[in-house]
């Protein structure tokens, strides 16, 4: 090849690639509306996006996997955590996580209530964008899909639990002064026997008990179903009922119950304090 030929190659390659790229860009524009549910971009969602930008969120978090890697991905966060949880969290992150334990903490941003509400609307819009099903598995902020994985090896060894306690190293120690949702989250792994021994909060992870991801949405369906026998009238009362009297409504499946009797212990009603049950209910009802 001489210099002229190589020059032609460079120009032709660039021109052809640019042409294809521009063509695909035009076609993408044709599809953006449907893929991103553009009709749902309300002024509130747009304001939420501005809040996201204003507080520089992307330089710690990722959204659609893009951003910095110092804080969790938030693409699907509104599908994992309800509005009450996210609102309480954004008002004061230190109620939910402890800097000494986690070695990092989100600084309080002093958002107004409108800013918080619209930011959640924006994140909810993000969570519904058709992005080829990413992430392939839910990205949890804390805790674990498989119980015990967040424990230290010593805690998992037979001899260890007495000296190290049952709290995983990543759990926030609570003083009792925190938000009830945060206290409920802690109680989930601490009551005896711990809820987390049989229930995961990760979608699709069914252990000895069914996953509790999305329990708030499912509860609404259950209490409206004609075969529902219990007395609950809303999500909170359904969750409370399931904790203290697990057999009133059983989740279908031979691994969860037999002869109408749930395998879940029915001891929580008398072993837990009313506050603990309130806190667990507050936490679980935010799992969308």
């Amino acid at each position, binding site marked *: 090849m001489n210099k002229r030929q190589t020059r032609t190659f460079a120009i032709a390659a*660039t021109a*052809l690639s640019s042409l294809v*790229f521009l063509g695909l860009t035009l076609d993408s524009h044709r599809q953006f509306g449907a*893929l991103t549910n553009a009709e749902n971009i309300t002024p509130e969602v747009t304001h939420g996006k501005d809040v996201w930008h204003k507080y*520089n969120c992307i330089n710690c978090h990722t*959204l659609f996997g893009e951003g910095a890697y110092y804080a969790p991905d938030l693409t699907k966060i509104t599908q994992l955590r309800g509005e009450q949880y996210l609102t309480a969290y954004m008002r004061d992150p230190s109620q939910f996580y402890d*800097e000494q334990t986690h070695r990092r903490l989100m600084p309080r941003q002093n958002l107004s209530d409108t800013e918080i509400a619209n930011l959640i609307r924006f994140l909810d819009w993000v969570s519904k964008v058709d992005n080829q099903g*990413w*992430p392939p598995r839910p990205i949890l902020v804390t805790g674990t*899909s498989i119980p015990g994985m967040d424990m230290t090896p010593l805690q998992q060894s037979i001899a260890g639990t007495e000296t190290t306690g049952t709290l995983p190293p990543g759990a926030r120690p609570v003083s009792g002064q925190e938000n009830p949702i945060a206290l409920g989250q802690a109680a989930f792994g601490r009551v005896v026997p711990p809820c987390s021994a049989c229930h995961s909060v990760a979608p699709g992870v069914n252990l000895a008990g069914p996953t509790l991801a999305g329990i708030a949405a499912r509860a609404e369906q259950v209490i409206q179903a004609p075969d529902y026998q219990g007395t609950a009238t809303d999500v909170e009362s359904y969750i409370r009922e399931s904790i203290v009297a697990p057999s009133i409504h059983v989740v279908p499946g031979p691994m969860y119950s037999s002869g109408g009797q749930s395998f879940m212990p029915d001891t929580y009603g008398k072993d837990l304090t009313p506050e603990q049950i309130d806190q667990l209910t507050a936490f679980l009802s935010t799992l969308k």
Partner: protein
Amino acid sequence: MQYRSQAVAYWYFAVAMVLFGLQIVFGLLSAAKYLGPDPLLYILPFDVTKVIHTNLLLVWVLTGFMGATYWMVPDESRTELHSVKLAYVQLVLWVVMGVTAIIGYLFRFGTGNKLLEQPLPHKIVIVVVMLMFLYNIGMTIKKSGRFTTTEGVLLLGVGSAAVLYLPALLHYENYTVSIFYRWWTIHLWVEGVWEMIQASFLAYLLIRLSGADREVMEKWLYVIVGLVFIAGILGTAHHYYWVGVPGYWLPIGGFFSALEPLALVGMAIYAYTALRRSGVAHPNTLALHWTLGSAVFTLFGAGLLGLAHTWPSVNKWTHGTLITAMHGHAAFYGAYAMIVMAMITFALPSLTHRRSEQGTAVGFWAFWLQLAGMFGMTLSFATAGIAQVYLERILGLGYLDTQLKIQVHFLMLVATASVFAFGVALFIWDFFRFQPRFETAANTGPADRSVAQMAT
């Protein structure tokens, strides 16, 4: 130094050095925050140190590009710059823009759009500076009547960089659309036109450092540019994974970004054969280290480590983890930081008094410490990233719990980053410890002699 006006390059390089030093300070601060707890949580939180770290990178590398261009174009076109005054005005405007942007970031005064955080007035200044720069270079070449392929490629690279910045000035209502166009600037810069700039500096340096024939070098330069764009333009698609764009970008991204290393392999072979066939024809051994180092480290950081997570079926798991930080650090350093340091090291003996032509001992220490440090940092990010992918993405352990389990890699990161920072400090010290000199080649040093020989 052959032409008096090349002295402007010294001030561009000096500014680049100061900003490079600052970039590393903010990088170290950010890395330390991974170890936590953070005593500066409410004074200088991670998002602030990180945004300053990445923005300083862009600013200092672009400053280096501009300085290196002002150094190279008079050499190539055998003439003085069109306007030295304009070059200085441009530098002052650029520094004011950069410094005020950084101060603004300290108070969260930015757009919050990744890598394009510059507020609108700053973006406009960036465009104005680019136009001044292009005008000055264009007029210089026009006046001289001598236009080499090497500078043609450089000019096209710099010009396209300015054009591609324009989508960043627009506002998009739809977050997905704004991501789509953000990559027109960022990706097409770093994996497109900046590679053109890098390749033309590489050609310039190789033509002068080795005995290679200009015709041959420039012929292959075209091939490299062709390869960069075949893969680079459609390779933008690898940024379109999982962000809400049509699914056909997935296979396109996989295929074309797998081709991206071709141009980088090309560059490495290019550098190797130039020296192998023609031998070294210049005493500046240190500049040769940086030149070859850049070609090889680009192949490693941008090529190999990019390829490692570019397939959609792999990227599905690694997307948004520290694997990206692994690739990002090695790629930017190899391709852009190193080529700027190569140009600086090449120009420096004739821009300063009493500096050894071969390169100083401090200079060699700076080179090897930086290389070792960056390699260690890359490994730290890689090991942390792999562990993160398995624990968090595959086994479903929570993000925060995972970060606790990979603390040891962050210790390794801080340790290797300190080695790197020491290398950078030595480079900066070596830059400033000799007085600048602004005489032309009337009292010719060996560097200028060989430049003069090559030019004739």
